[in-house]
């Protein structure tokens, strides 16, 4: 059952998105609307267009055709596909947070510096940025590990640093691409708990690409893609997250 019609005042809405690589249609006329404060999983087999959809919604990639509209609280609508490269980069930096499978943490920096970097890039002075980063890390159970380099952290701890970085700027939307894909099941569950608590638990939107049905089952809504088309759009029942 398609849920788009039930999303009033969508935070992000996409219409008629298409994207091709050669003769492959990664996105083939996608219409989707995502509300504030919800967790949406994007599922589908390899090559179905999951990551391309996430990239198009986040302004990482431009669609060949179609529109992506962002309605941030207190701001007018933004047509993401019409923004130039630099403006899209700024939008991602300021309005979105990201958690990828590989963490994408800078190995030379400590945990707190990796988190603070997201703020410093936006012009926050180092002292203030570090203070907020330490606070964010401590809230995620990483107290005492702020000064550790990334190589000195476990996979689960590294992902929690990445989550802290994604939410320290106060982003309304967090995009996650297989955030637990490289972790064992126990650590994966802990990281997912943390991610959900920091995002939907704090009234933010989480858009997550995953292969794992158990991970998807913790979300409010599951989009299933096949050959660049949404073939299922299922809302999960209340209370499923626990």
């Amino acid at each position, binding site marked *: 059952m398609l849920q788009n019609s039930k999303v009033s005042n969508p935070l992000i809405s996409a219409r008629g998105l298409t994207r091709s690589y050669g003769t492959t249609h990664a996105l083939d006329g996608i219409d989707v609307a995502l509300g504030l404060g919800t967790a949406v999983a994007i599922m589908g087999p390899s090559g179905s267009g999951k990551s391309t959809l996430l990239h198009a919604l986040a302004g990482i990639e431009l669609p060949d055709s179609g529109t992506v509209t962002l309605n941030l609280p207190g701001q007018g609508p933004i047509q993401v596909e019409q923004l130039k490269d630099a403006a899209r980069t700024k939008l*991602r930096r300021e309005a979105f947070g990201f958690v990828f499978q*590989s963490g994408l943490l800078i190995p030379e920096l400590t945990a707190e*510096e990796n988190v603070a970097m997201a703020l410093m890039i936006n012009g926050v002075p*180092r002292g203030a940025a570090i203070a907020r980063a330490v606070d964010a890390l401590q809230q995620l159970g990483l107290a005492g590990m702020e000064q550790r380099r990334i190589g000195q952290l476990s996979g689960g701890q590294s992902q929690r640093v990445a989550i802290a970085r994604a939410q320290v700027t106060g982003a309304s939307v967090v995009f996650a691409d297989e955030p637990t894909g490289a972790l064992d099941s126990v650590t994966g569950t802990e990281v997912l708990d943390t991610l959900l608590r920091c995002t939907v638990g704090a009234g933010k939107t989480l858009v997550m690409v995953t292969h794992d049905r158990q991970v998807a089952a913790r979300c409010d809504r599951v989009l299933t893609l096949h050959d660049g088309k949404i073939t299922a759009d299922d809302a999960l029942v209340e209370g499923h997250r626990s």
Partner: protein
Amino acid sequence: MNILHMAWLLGRPTSASRTPQLLTVGAYTMVSAMVLIVLGGAWSFTKLDGEAQSFYVPLAAFALVLLIVPLLVLGSSAAKLSARAQDRALSSLRLLGATGFQVRAVAVTQAAVTALVGALAGVLLYLALAPAVALVPFQGQPIGTGIFLPAGAAALAVLAVVLLSVISALAGLRKLVITPLAVATRRVAPVPSWLRAVITVGSIVVLYSLFTNVGLLPVDLGVLIAIIIGGFALGLLALNLIGPWLVAKVGKSKLNKANNAEQLLAARMILESPVAAWRQVSGVAMASFVAVIGGTGAAMFGFGEAQATGTWEDYLGTDVLTGVLVTLGLALICVAISAAISQCAGTLDREELYSGLGKLGMDLAVINAARVKSLMIPALTVAIGFAVASVVLVLPFASLALLMKPLTVGTVLVVLVAGLLMIRVSLNIADPRRLLPAGSRRD
């Protein structure tokens, strides 16, 4: 499958390996052309009159000795880039059951073949540049056809470059751990600070005693020059111990003062490995040393030029200055190329991270600026630090030279500054916005 076959299968050019391979071949082309030009210059001195020859040939040998360190660093950077570019393939070989020895043999064979191609291209470059170099005057007249080495000597130089690549590859690979899963950098235990201090202080004491008493030694010019070269080698050892310490001190100071993303990242990049940062700019330290000592020497020799005696000594000041400028220029070119190559290797190594950070909204210009700073901060520190140290070493002579021959001192300093600018410009080649394929840095 034998080593050569494996080397060919892994080393043949593909779209992904083209950039690192071209950079590596280009590096060896430059190394070979520079070695051949310096050897050509030294060769031309063998045709001078007896007394002049006994002075000029050792000086040319001295210039060659000075160039060995930057050339070795350049060769090592090229070999490491070559191995890094093949890391997945080398790991796969281990996974397929190849022994560590076989994998190293493949990597070394590839480095040797790459160096051979580069060296042969270097011969062509040398031949192309020779007419211009032939115009450089020594003893009042252009070098002329004297710059052309005999074919046998040129072939030996090519072999020496290939040998250099093999030594550099072995040295570089010693620091890499090639496992079936990945290629990682081996952590080498640093020299303890007390040992560093003992060797440095010991070297300074020996050098000071040597150079203050060298005039009293009852030896002829050849032995004197050999003593000076030996003293210089000891000085290099001391430099190699002080250098990383100095770079680490500056890195820590920059880290404490960093107030934006770019400064923080640059300081952390330096502190990641002060030894590696030092190695990249050690040629600059040498260039600074040559600039001050050589520039002062050229000015001192030039004092007598006003009273022409009609002998070969009339040209000493001018010729020493020419030699200093050529050595300085070549050393700085080596640093510029090796810095560019090692930064390219670093950028290619971090392709996934950098493209991912671009997706996150981190402007790659910030990463690029931090990367440039991580090299230029040590380069400028070392250039200024070692220039000041060298001035202190020859203070009375340096001040006299500046007063009497300001143009000579000025020329040397201009070349040094131009060399530093060249190093800065060369780093643009490793800009992730240019170097990484458009698809991977999609932002």
